[in-house]
């Protein structure tokens, strides 16, 4: 599995805007190998759950996960991963199986208006969740929406925080107070 760096500063990047995006604490260490990713479906749950250290509060059983990913969805994910690789040293590859993946993504009902959640990088398999019932999911095949929807989640997977906007005021969600290996953030 890809290694994890610890003791990553959460500030001191020369700009308050950059500082506000970096979670700090952990980040991927890609000096040895790229991040292995997998699009999980119901039948992968048992194997992935073992690598993950058990189910999660979002995904408790195979029945909660969708059974397929469409080709359009796969393409949209590929596009957004390519965006990340194109700007920085992050590298991704498709895992051989759900069990050997560093990150497994699931289509799962989240509720509460959330469109996605993601666990931040820590040792062990990380899970990210996308809600296909969210209105914006139908636009995933458009370039812009594919990027907006999917790359936000991967931003969190990469160690970035998410901001939201109300009018012209940027609201920075309280985040550093959240620590621990299962930290995730609703993408409302």
């Amino acid at each position, binding site marked *: 599995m890809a290694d994890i760096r610890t003791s990553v500063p959460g500030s001191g990047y020369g*700009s308050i*805007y950059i500082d506000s995006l970096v979670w700090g604490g952990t980040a*991927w260490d890609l000096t040895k190998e790229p991040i292995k990713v997998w699009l999980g479906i119901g039948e992968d749950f048992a194997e992935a759950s073992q690598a993950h250290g058990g189910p999660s509060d979002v995904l408790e059983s195979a029945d909660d996960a969708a059974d397929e990913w469409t080709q359009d969805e796969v393409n949209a994910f590929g596009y957004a991963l390519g965006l990340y690789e194109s700007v920085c040293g992050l590298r991704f590859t498709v895992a051989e199986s759900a069990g050997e993946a560093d990150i497994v993504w699931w289509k799962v009902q989240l509720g509460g208006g959330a469109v996605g959640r993601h666990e931040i990088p820590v040792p062990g398999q990380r899970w990210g969740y996308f809600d296909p019932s969210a209105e914006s999911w139908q*636009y995933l095949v*458009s370039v812009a929406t594919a*990027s907006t929807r999917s790359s936000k989640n991967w931003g969190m997977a990469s160690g970035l925080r998410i901001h939201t906007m109300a009018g012209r005021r940027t609201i920075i969600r309280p985040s550093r107070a959240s620590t621990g290996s299962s930290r995730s953030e609703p*993408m409302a």
Partner: protein
Amino acid sequence: MSYNTGWNVTQNGIDHGAQGGLGAFDIAALQALYGPNMSTATGDNTYVLPTFSDYVGEEGWFCIWDAGGQDMLDAGHALGPVALDLRAATRQSHDPNAGGFISWEVGVAGGFTIANGVVIENATGGSHSDELYGNFAANVLKGNSGQDRLWGDAGDDILYGGTGKDTLTGSSGRDAFVFDKKPSKKSNMDRISDFNRKDDTIRLDNAAFKKIGKAGKLKSKYFEAGSKADDRNDYIVYNKKKGILYYDADGSGKGKALEIASLKKKLKLTYEDFAVI
């Protein structure tokens, strides 16, 4: 990372006008953690501005990460006025342009910003009244038609107003102002706002100014600084009192001199301030 649907001064919805790529802060933060990818877009790339035109078709906001080459923002197909801004996101705290300078066609919910550390060298406007801003590098800015406003910013820039009554500002650096269209006081007379004799040059295309000879330096006998041409080969005349530069195809003959551009008054222009291209 942001959940904004799009830039809040343009129309946007869940299906259009959204961010089509990573933003300038996203890129900077990712690079802070993982280093920049210096193998991306190292060739000479042209970034075509999203427009209403079916020719381009795609809308959304994109921040450009480009690691090298001679690159261009192109709005040649725009159906309305555009702003093309080659300045990169500053990242600086409390700077309104920390996240970038917007390049867009007015009314279109999509366009570009440029990530910190990226240099896009050139910009080409469309057929409307455009605004083009250079950066610290040596830029080639082309307004094309319309009443354009061009700012070279720092660097040794080359500014082409094209047709229309354009305003050209070189700013610092050794800038060149190019005139390659037939002059017309009514429809194609530009203004050079900051000509600096020490550094800048006016380039005249002999396809539009047929009398001025071969490419190279302008011959001294073809230039006159005064109220009008003194002899038959004073083809380029600078009227100090008015600050107007003329082309007079028959010199002191009866033909009317055509206004090329207005400059500051009382400049000490000589033939050495011109080049023939």
